């Protein structure tokens, strides 16, 4: 947790002032019982009304000043803790942006999201508590004890017995109940798992008439959760009764032994009352400490989860920021004996991949699920680092490029059609912030999306909801294609990106892309990844992958002749035509 101190630096002032004022308030609070003792011992004993009024006024004054101090402290706490949270969130977001795919896969996106939201909130709460209470609560305990010692050290011995006993009670109860909260959470997760399964599998469950058994399964899980909650409740319910009993017994002792002290003239009656008040203050402060322990245990867990992200080193970074000079006459893209294994995976996902794509060529990559098609594509924009060999763009190893220059050359249409909330125009300007409406319309035209966008009442200003919920799958897919085309990339990668399109649209799209690419000055190099032979059969070159290896490279006709795997794929998908030919 200490590592987070640096994020508090810019709030140094608040972190310092807050506790100081809090302490001042606590001191005033400790003085109040003393003032009261004076009222009793001097005011009442002497029948001095003026003194009583004066001291009463002092009390109100103490309260007012205390209030002022407390407000200053609370404001400091709010400012420092919220500021701290803001800084950490921003830092995390920046760091996540710098991580490479490998690291993101390792933590997983859902977990990253909880860490940047919930975990940072926990830390923020801990900072607020740190400023507000961490100094105050122990100070009140110690202060009350010190005051008691100052009044009468013999009677104060009771404090030295009672305080550890209260602490022990707190420790015993909490150490036995806190670990169970995690178990309760796990049981609750199971309840939500069953619910989720029942919603996503509702058709299967009803098809097999299993509603009754599912109800029983749910009943069992929720009873389980109920029972453990009740069991833990039994332990944690002990906390308040135990501590208050200890304090009440201590009060009994104070009054009894205080009687002896008063009897011999060692103490006054008012001082005994002050003792009782201090004991009550200790009880309240101890319970605050107990809550603090819970908050900080949670915060420590969050801190390590946040730290794990912040300390993760991005494995892929630009070697240089100055743009690299491309080699002329080199192939646009080449794979040179590339091997690749995912981090922490034993086996290579790709082995010995070599092929070239000239400027303006269209290359198809085909193979079954898990053969490494998408993996191969991910190496081009350097999302992952090759294990051996090299991927070159314009004759230069991708590792030599500044990432922005390399990725600026490439337009990718990912498998999953993802759009972001905001206007359609903004989505189209992702690659090139200053793309004009004309460029956007041209890209939409090519992507077969212009027609439906034109029909939208707001055109390019149409708001897209989170996850593109207000669009159909096919519309989303066409828009992601258009997004990649805006700004004319030098290399266009289509990763199985036409699956949601009907066949006529798909065909029109392929023709339009071919036209678009050949019209560009130097031609656009296109990579089409697919499981369907018909999608890639008109490519200039087809690379057939099987289990991470190239098993054939050539044109459709060549491969039908020479490549067993290609034939298998092709015929299984085109039986009918096979019979005709």
């Amino acid at each position, binding site marked *: 947790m200490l590592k987070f101190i640096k994020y508090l630096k810019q709030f140094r002032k608040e972190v310092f002032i807050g506790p100081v004022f809090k302490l001042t308030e606590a001191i005033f609070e400790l003085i109040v019982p003393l003032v009261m003792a004076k009222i009793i011992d001097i005011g009442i004993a002497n*029948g001095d009304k003026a003194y009583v009024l004066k001291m009463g006024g002092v009390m109100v004054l103490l309260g007012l000043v205390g209030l002022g101090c407390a407000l200053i402290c609370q404001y400091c706490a709010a400012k420092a803790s919220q500021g701290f949270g803001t800084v950490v969130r921003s830092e995390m977001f920046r760091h996540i942006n710098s991580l490479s795919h490998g690291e993101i896969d390792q933590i997983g996106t859902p977990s990253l999201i909880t860490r940047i939201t919930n975990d940072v909130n926990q830390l923020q709460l801990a900072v607020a508590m740190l400023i507000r209470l961490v100094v105050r609560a122990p100070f009140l305990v110690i202060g009350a004890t010190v005051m008691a010692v100052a009044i009468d050290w013999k009677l104060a011995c009771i404090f030295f017995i009672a305080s550890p006993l209260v602490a022990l009670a707190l420790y015993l109860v909490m150490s036995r109940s806190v670990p169970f909260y995690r178990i309760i959470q796990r049981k609750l997760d199971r309840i939500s798992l069953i619910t989720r399964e029942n919603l996503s599998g509702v058709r299967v469950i009803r*098809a097999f008439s299993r509603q009754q058994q599912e109800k029983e399964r749910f009943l069992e899980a929720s009873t389980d959760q109920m029972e453990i909650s009740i069991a833990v409740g039994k332990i944690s319910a002990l906390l308040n009764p135990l501590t208050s009993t200890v304090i009440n017994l201590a009060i009994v002792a104070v009054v009894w032994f205080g009687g002896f002290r008063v009897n011999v003239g060692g103490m006054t009656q008012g001082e005994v009352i002050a003792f009782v008040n201090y004991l009550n203050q200790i009880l309240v402060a101890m319970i605050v400490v107990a809550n603090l322990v819970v908050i900080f245990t949670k915060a420590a867990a969050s801190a390590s989860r946040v730290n794990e992200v912040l300390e993760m080193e991005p494995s892929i970074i630009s070697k240089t920021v100055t743009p690299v000079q491309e080699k002329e006459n080199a192939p646009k893209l080449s794979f040179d004996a590339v091997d690749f294994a995912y981090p922490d995976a034993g086996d290579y996902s790709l082995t010995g991949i070599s092929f070239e794509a000239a400027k303006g060529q269209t290359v198809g990559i085909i193979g079954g699920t898990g053969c490494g098609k998408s993996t191969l594509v991910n190496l081009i924009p350097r999302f992952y680092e090759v294990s051996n060999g090299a991927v070159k763009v314009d004759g230069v190893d991708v590792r030599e490029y500044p990432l922005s220059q390399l990725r600026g050359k490439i337009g990718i249409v990912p498998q999953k059609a993802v759009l972001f909330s905001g206007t359609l125009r903004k989505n189209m300007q992702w690659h090139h912030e200053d793309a004009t409406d004309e460029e956007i319309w041209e890209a939409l035209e090519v992507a077969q999306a212009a027609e439906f966008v034109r029909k939208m009442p707001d055109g390019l200003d149409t708001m897209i909801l989170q996850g593109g919920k207000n669009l159909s799958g096919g519309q989303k897919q066409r828009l992601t294609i258009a997004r990649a085309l805006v700004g004319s990339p030098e290399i266009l990668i289509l990763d199985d990106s036409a699956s949601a399109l009907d066949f006529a649209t798909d065909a029109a799209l392929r023709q339009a892309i071919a036209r678009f690419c050949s019209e560009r000055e130097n031609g656009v190099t296109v990579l089409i990844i697919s499981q369907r032979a018909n999608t890639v059969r008109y490519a200039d070159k087809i690379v057939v992958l099987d289990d991470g290896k190239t098993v054939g490279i050539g044109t459709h006709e060549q491969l039908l002749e020479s490549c067993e795997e290609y034939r298998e794929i092709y015929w299984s998908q085109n039986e009918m035509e096979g019979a005709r030919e």
Partner: protein
Amino acid sequence: MDMEKRSDILKRILSFAKPHLWYLAAALVSALLSVSLTLYAPILIGRGIDEILEPGKVYFDNLKPILIGLIAVAILAALFQWLMTLCTNMVTYKTVRDLRVAVFNKVEEIPLSRIDSRSHGDIISRIINDIDSVSDGLLQGFSQLFTGIITIAITLGYMLSLNFKVGLVVVVLTPLSLFVASFIAKHSFDMFRRQSAVKGQLSGYIEELVGNQKVVKAFGYEERAQGEFDTINHQLYEVGVKAQFYSSLTNPCTRFVNGVVYAAVAIFGALSCIAGGFSVGALSSFLTYANQYTKPFNEISGVVTELQTALASAKRVFAVIDEPAEEPDAADAQYPQNCEGQIEIDHVHFSYDAAKPLIQDFNLKVQPGQRIALVGPTGCGKTTMINLLMRFYDTDSGEIRVDGQPVKQIGRNALRSLYGMVLQDTWMFKGSVRENIAYGKPDATDEEVIAAAKAAYAHSFIMRLPQGYDTILTEDGGNISQGQKQLLCIARAMLTKPSMLILDEATSNIDTRTEIKIQKAFGEMMKGHTSFVVAHRLSTIRESDCILVMKDGQIIEQGTHEQLLKQKGFYHQLYYSQFVQTAS
């Protein structure tokens, strides 16, 4: 929410707590006892102090019984406090369990249309979060409210009985606490609402951008994302500081009000002592009360806001419970074990939304053993047919008959078990491979399970899994491939030996070899059984007895392959673009 509705919701929650009413009653009695005893202690302490006046004037004989009484009171108060918490826990957790089960059971019974039209996340959140907030706010809150009120009442009672005049001073100051508490509650509530709006915006942004980090990188959007993020993040800071500050005012302000009450009691109490008729010990008890007096006001105002959230949550929970269940099976419903497989679809009309008619006047007669192919572009509504056949949805008008028996005359579960259904959207639950296969027939023997797996060409890959049939599949079956999942679904359907079949052929994401296996398994399953196939493969389509061509949710053509080709309609067009790429 008007008052009447609120009390209705409260009543319904109490009706759920009814079976545990004894615990509730015990909790209330314990609360009353524990609070009274706890508050009685200061009186005893005060009396004790009155026995220790000054040197030589300490009356130990009187002190002893008082202190023994104090010990007894302290222990009893603690005991009842413990009992109160235990009983409250019992009521709370048992009621929560019952509520959860009630909502879940209703989810199992409501028509599919109600599940399809809702976000699953929303239903889950009602079962988990909303019920939790009902438990925190209403049940725990209720006990806090109760103890708070009796604490105030008893404290006031004790104070007034100790010394009426000084007690009156406290009563006069009471509105001050109320005012401060409600003022703060109101302001911080507004701030919190604004804060949670910005918070929601920020998490939405994080979810989108972090969730799609790979796209962000592909387009070099990192810098712009950081800028947008920081803007929202800063807004959150501004509103967060205010929200936190306002809400953290509660403690200092109450402490101040408390201090004022304390000082007032000190002054008036001391003056009364001087005037006589009021002892120092009684003053000490009074001071203890003054210290405790304002705290419950705070708690109560906190509880009131929590109660409001809880009522809103309860409303959302009851909304699910109040959903109408599926129409029960007809009284004279038949429950056939198997059937011939003759299906008549007679003038059926159906739509999900009355404004958008989908299936209109659809007629089809399927003889036992025939194969019907459903063909059309993705998203054309082929699942609608499955919904109607399985009676996941009811027709708007017209009738579907199985072996001449209208489906509405057949028990839903009986009707559904006549079909074996394998969807492309495979569903696995967290459990072993064996349990997943035996889902439709939990009492199946190992031999039966293995036989079904073999018939579905799944046995060999299952044996290669780390624990074979005992391998635990994660939620959504993430540890096996999509194609393997479909093989398991086929085995699951085969095990129940259905009379008719509904199959959904794979389109993509399945490697060629697995696809061939699935195809073979499908082929064997369909032999001699009436089957409906959502078809993508030409061979399946060509061998069908009837093809239904669907587009935009409607059945636009119907006939055999040859007939449809001759029509030169949409099927003709589809056929040539999908299966026969013209070599231009």
